């Protein structure tokens, strides 16, 4: 076997990955793997090769596809997945993580070219969803999914799906309310203009007519568009809370009543224009605040981590069974890369279970026959048979998830700046309003009432109510551009208040690819073959990694073989004595450097060097750990402490690093910190962190692919942006500062208006100018300054 495979620079025509060998060539196009090649074959057979003309390498790598969709024949599962069915057609919506470019869009909407049974397909690009209507007599759901998988677009099928939740309409109809408010605002402005310029005496009848019309237009705005403010204000009053909706609702009500009386009694123009404008802008602020990510789910539970179905063996026959029907005593079969869904006893096969997502342990664990394997592990290697001993809902992992602290609802401890300030704002506003009423009452009751209402109108905290949503929406979109996805706008403010950061190790500060092998051994090809032949007999994780590194080779028969537990292997092969292991075994002395795990090699008593297995840390970990100056930094790991020395370089203080932490211990650690009044940000990735993520003030889930399963959290950080974490934290603080300044700006507008209002001589024109002017200032200021700061922090 030749070892010098030519590293050519050819890249896969389908996915753009480097082609390692020259095996997969068709039509003079190179492919990296069989999967990519077969996708091309399917497409070219159906004359769909324009797929490749819209974008270079539009596909995703198909290197590891080993999928079984038998469970999609089960009627119970089918009925859960589809949207609609009748005698002729079935409609189904799939979530396809792979959708990323115009080629995807084009190809997926051409499905009926490949199979005529597909009647209709529509892609929703942002939601990454594909809506398909097909003839289920000609094409089963399973075949449809296989068809999608064959062209490289495997749908993510999970019963606890985000699709259904998203597609149910939300109840509040905000857009409709804005439309009504905008419609009325426009018309009222049109009718109010003549008044701004003054009407001559013979045009007075027009003035009255315009006034009545304005009142008519205001009614739907008050009753329909601003209904939420009244409801919210009333509910908060009953709970004895003064939030910003109270002065807003009060302002709207006073504006309406005063406008009606002015028009009907005094035949004055009234404040209808101000009222409609106010409600219109407020609702827009609400809309801006409600930014949602369609393609990211923050609220996933264990059910979306587990597969939809599992194969059970009953009388030698394999049948797929929906996970909810899995019972104690079922014999299940788990193949390579499948997740074990329930606690079970191993009956057959060699189990190498990767628990990294559940426990944080980086290396796969070997299990012997008869041993209990907990749910959540991922089998690597051959298929295994197991007997379920606990139903899914009672497994260790599920119980962990259902732990009280884990399911705890949204914390209400943290108040946003807006909530804090609006309490005082309302009180001061009422004092000024009543003060001016009582001041004028003895002399002129009418003027007193005019002043009272004018204060409530002018001080209506419209600009204040808008400053937070607009700043936060701008901040959110900047985070979004940097692959940091926050659940909602509140998180920005919570992030600014953070003083302690706790990090998980495996998967969080190390990359998902796991370990890298550093080859410090000068081995000849022959020696490599010897080492490989020895290591292949061992199931120790390090031996496995050596084998993977040295690549598949011819195996030589081993004459003598002895594995020394915890040290290494001694073997005789082809008349050579080979020792592979740690320093104690190979060189006979204790190792003093514990920077990384080393495997030393001795052949015929000649030391040949060593292989070093180091975890690869994320780019920018050194940058992130400079936060040490401003924040308290901790590391919690479920792994053992063999990397402690190496990590000390980053974390300085050995006390800040805790190893061998169970999920519960991590949670307790966070709550201990919180007992000391520290605001904690937890950064983690796996299920073992999920408790800590929930408990912390902000939980950030790190992932290399945002479509992957992540535990429930407040924010999701793409691993590539990990190095920007210090900038993110700084930026959140700046955003809060912007809110403070815009509060001051809106306050100064209010003071200016109040100086007119307390005298009782507020003219509708001043109100109509002041309100939109302050709103426009706030919107412009928050948006521009947020972008300016983002540029300064190099986030744009």
């Amino acid at each position, binding site marked *: 076997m030749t070892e010098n495979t030519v590293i050519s620079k050819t890249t896969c025509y389908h996915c753009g990955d480097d082609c390692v060998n020259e095996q997969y060539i068709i039509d003079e196009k190179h492919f990296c793997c069989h999967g990519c090649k077969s996708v091309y074959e399917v497409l070219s057979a159906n004359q769909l090769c*324009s797929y490749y003309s*819209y974008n270079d390498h539009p596909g995703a790598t198909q290197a590891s596809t080993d999928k079984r969709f038998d469970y999609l024949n089960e009627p119970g599962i089918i009925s859960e997945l589809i949207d609609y069915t009748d005698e002729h057609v079935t409609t189904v919506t799939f979530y396809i993580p792979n959708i990323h470019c*115009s080629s995807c*869009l*084009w190809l997926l*909407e*051409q499905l*009926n*070219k490949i199979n005529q049974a597909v*009647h*209709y397909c*529509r*892609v*929703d*690009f*942002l*939601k990454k969803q594909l809506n398909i209507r097909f003839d289920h007599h000609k094409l089963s759901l399973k075949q449809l999914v296989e068809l999608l998988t064959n062209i490289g677009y495997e749908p993510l099928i999970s019963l606890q799906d985000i699709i259904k939740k998203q597609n149910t309409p939300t109840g509040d109809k905000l*857009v*409709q309310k804005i*439309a*009504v408010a905008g*419609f009325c605002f*426009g*018309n009222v402005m*049109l*009718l109010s203009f003549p008044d701004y310029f003054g009407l001559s005496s013979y*045009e007075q009848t*027009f003035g009255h*007519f315009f006034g009545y*019309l304005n009142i008519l237009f205001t009614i739907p705005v008050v009753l329909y568009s601003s209904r939420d403010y009244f409801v919210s204000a009333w509910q908060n009053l009953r709970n004895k809370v003064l939030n910003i909706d109270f002065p807003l609702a009060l302002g709207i009500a006073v504006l309406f009543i005063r406008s009606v009386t002015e028009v009907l009694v005094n035949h004055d123009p009234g404040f209808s224009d101000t009222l409609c404008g106010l409600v219109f802008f407020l609702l827009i602020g609400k809309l801006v605040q409600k930014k949602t990510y369609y393609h990211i789910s923050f609220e996933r539970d264990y059910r979306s981590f587990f597969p939809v179905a599992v194969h059970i063996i009953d009388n030698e026959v394999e049948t797929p069974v929906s996970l909810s029907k899995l019972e104690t005593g079922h014999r299940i079969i788990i193949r390579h890369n499948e997740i074990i869904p329930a606690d079970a006893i191993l009956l057959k096969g060699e189990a190498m279970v990767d628990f990294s997502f559940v426990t944080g342990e980086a290396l796969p664990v070997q299990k012997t026959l008869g041993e209990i394997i907990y749910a959540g592990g991922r089998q690597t290697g051959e298929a295994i048979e197991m007997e379920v001993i606990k139903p899914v809902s009672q497994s260790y992992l599920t119980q962990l998830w259902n732990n009280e602290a884990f399911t705890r609802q949204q914390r209400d401890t943290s108040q946003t700046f807006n909530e804090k300030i609006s309490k005082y704002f309302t009180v001061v506003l009422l004092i000024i309003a009543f003060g001016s009423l009582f001041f004028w009452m003895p002399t002129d009751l009418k003027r007193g009432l005019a002043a009272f209402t004018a204060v409530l109108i002018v001080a209506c905290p419209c600009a204040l109510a808008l400053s937070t949503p607009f700043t936060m929406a701008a901040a959110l979109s900047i985070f979004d551009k940097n692959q940091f996805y926050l659940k909602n706008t509140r998180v920005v403010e919570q992030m600014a208040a953070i003083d302690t950061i706790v990090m998980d190790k495996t998967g969080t500060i190390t990359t998902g690819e796991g370990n890298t092998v550093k080859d410090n051994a000068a081995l000849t090809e022959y020696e490599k073959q010897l080492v490989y032949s020895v290591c292949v007999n061992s199931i120790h994780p390090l031996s496995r990694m050596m084998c993977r590194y040295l690549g598949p080779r011819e195996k030589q028969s081993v004459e003598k073989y002895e594995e020394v537990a915890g040290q290494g292997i001694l073997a005789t092969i082809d008349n050579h004595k080979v020792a592979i292991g740690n320093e104690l075994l190979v060189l006979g002395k204790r190792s003093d450097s514990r920077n990384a795990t080393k495997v030393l090699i001795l052949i015929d008593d000649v030391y040949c060097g060593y292989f070093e297995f180091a975890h690869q840390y994320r780019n920018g970990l050194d940058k992130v750990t400079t936060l040490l100056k401003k924040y308290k930094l901790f590391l919690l790991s479920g792994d053992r402490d063999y990397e402690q020395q190496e990590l000390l370089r980053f974390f300085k203080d050995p006390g800040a690093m805790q190893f061998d932490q169970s999920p519960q211990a991590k949670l307790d650690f966070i709550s201990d910190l919180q007992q000391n009044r520290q605001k904690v940000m937890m950064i983690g990735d796996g299920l073992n962190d999920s408790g800590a993520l929930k408990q912390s003030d902000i939980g950030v889930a790190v992932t290399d692919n945002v479509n992957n399963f992540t535990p429930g959290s407040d924010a999701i950080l793409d691993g590539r942006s990990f190095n920007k974490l210090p900038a993110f934290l700084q930026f959140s603080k700046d955003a809060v500062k912007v809110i403070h300044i815009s509060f001051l700006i809106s306050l100064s507008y209010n003071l200016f208006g109040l100086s007119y209002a307390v005298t009782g001589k507020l003219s509708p024109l001043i109100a109509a100018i002041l309100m939109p002017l302050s709103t426009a200032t706030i919107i412009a200021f928050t948006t521009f300054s947020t972008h300016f700061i983002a540029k300064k922090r190099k986030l744009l």
Partner: protein
Amino acid sequence: MSIIYFLIGCSVTLALIFLGAFFWAQRSGQNDDLYTPSMRILLDDEQFEEEEK
């Protein structure tokens, strides 16, 4: 000048029709996906004839 009453009546009716049209569009789901059509239009339409339903 009484023509103004008629003109305002016309303009309000027209505006109401637009508002109604917007409500109808919203209800029938035309505004659900505002992004994908912008990409779809850039793709060549040689093979698109039987696509529409």
